[in-house]
């Protein structure tokens, strides 16, 4: 199949991304050839295509770059539903767009026995993806931030949630308190204003 050519020369940033996003929403071509005339566009387009499950290679000529992109095979199509474009389609298909926020203020689930609580937390985070796309933000506060640090027993579960599109917000003051600022391995550092605004915007807030 011939590649679809998208000529992005003379387009100001971020027009090339808009064009390509539209193209990918309308059809999902196997091969795309993108022509750009500046390095920022080369970098942005290459990143965009990689994020949408394309293997992209570029060749430079005087004053322009050609980016050849090939949709990755079945292995990669597993990745595709994670992409922002696919997420939008899924969001449109299901009518349920409620935003659920889960707040964890402790590294263990409940009180009773902390060893058990730790296991329950791991199981909880592993099962949380069952919420599907409605799981909007996971907020880690107080001792909960230790879950996001290097060597945390649930780092894979949190990364999995983040890759499926859940924002993980980690309280910066709490990281600082536990001296974990430099050891945060997942999520975005946040502050109380973000937490409160998130609670306000969310359709459902679950506090553990």
């Amino acid at each position, binding site marked *: 199949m011939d590649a679809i050519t998208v000529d992005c020369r003379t387009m100001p940033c971020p027009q090339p991304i808009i064009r390509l996003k539209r193209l990918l929403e309308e059809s999902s071509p196997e091969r795309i050839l993108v022509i750009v005339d500046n*390095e920022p566009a080369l970098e942005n387009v290459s990143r965009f295509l990689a994020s949408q499950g394309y293997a992209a290679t570029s060749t430079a000529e005087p004053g322009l770059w050609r980016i050849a992109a090939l949709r990755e095979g079945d292995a990669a199509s597993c990745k595709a539903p994670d992409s*922002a474009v696919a997420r939008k389609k899924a969001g449109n298909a299901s009518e349920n767009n409620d935003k659920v926020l889960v707040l964890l203020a402790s590294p263990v689930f409940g009180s009773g026995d902390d060893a058990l609580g730790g296991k329950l937390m791991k199981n909880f985070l592993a099962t949380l993806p069952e919420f599907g796309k409605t799981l909007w933000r996971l907020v880690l506060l107080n001792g909960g931030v230790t879950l996001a640090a290097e060597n945390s027993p649930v780092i894979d579960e949190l990364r999995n949630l983040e890759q499926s599109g859940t924002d993980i917000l980690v309280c910066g003051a709490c990281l600082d308190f536990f001296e974990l600022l430099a050891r945060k391995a997942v999520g975005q550092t946040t502050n109380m204003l973000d937490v409160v605004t998130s609670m306000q915007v969310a359709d459902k807030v679950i506090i553990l």
Partner: protein
Amino acid sequence: MDKSHASGCAAKIPAGILAGLLNSLPADPLARKRLLTSARSNEDAAIVRMPSGKALVQTIDFFTPLVNDPYAFGQIAAANAISDVYAMGGEPWCVMNIVCFPVNGYPFEILEEILAGGAAKAAEAGAVLAGGHSIGDTEIKYGLAVTGIVNPESFAANTNLRPGQVLMLTKSLGTGILATAVKVAWEGAEAMEQDVIRTASKLNAGPARVIRELGLTAATDITGFGLGGHLLEMAEASRVDIRIEAKALPVLPRVHEMASVGLLPAGSHANKRFRKPETLVAPGVDPLLVDIAFDAQTSGGIVLALMPNQVAAARNLLSDSADEAHVIGSVLPPSGGPRLHIV
């Protein structure tokens, strides 16, 4: 020069419309005390009362809209312009509007909203609105000329970084990237726009109070050149090196994701490329965090240079004003090589 679409004062916004817009702004309670001329009598210039013994801080900034809500744009443009006074440790005293607006293109209610947003921020900052200047133009631009006051013996400058100081940042990064995502109407654009508005319209009054109360001598606000660009300006002016920890950088929600799909604005690419020779990135540092460190910010936070024993006091003061307080790095003696180390 002959590409100008109108000549000199002929490019003004029609007087009748302007008068209506200005009269619709709420009365400024500070005007009575601080202005010796009336804001409503069309004086040629404003006469402003000055406190004795203070030095003036003068600055000006204006730009094109980055959000779709005109009132919010007015607030952000004003907060951004006023921030330069705060970054020196000054207090805003009076402001003047600078307006470019398409005479035939947008309803004037939009301009009214922009001016109202700007006036509200000026009032919140405790500055009196002393006047302004408007001109017809092909695209909307708005900002303020700001005059602040500062103790002539005590203010914060770019030249006073010293090795051993700790650097604290007071707003999360990523407004340039989020504004780009909003511009392309990426999914979730509304929430991202709200994040931009919330952070960019927040006045840097709290960090300025820290500068004054702790007597800090070095600080800067983070705007168009990105965190990395503005830190390098300080490092060069002070002849020191700076180390920042990539993982300690506070980042607004979804910024990392938006950077990963290629929504980095051209200005941020330019910032990074321009400063490449002066920047040393340690192996293993997430390249997207480096991009975020050079993302062009609108009305970003202030970087405060603190002695280690001042960190707790600064944190307490910033907590009182509901500002963020992120320790992001430290000042090092000059190595002779690149001045900015990202580890």
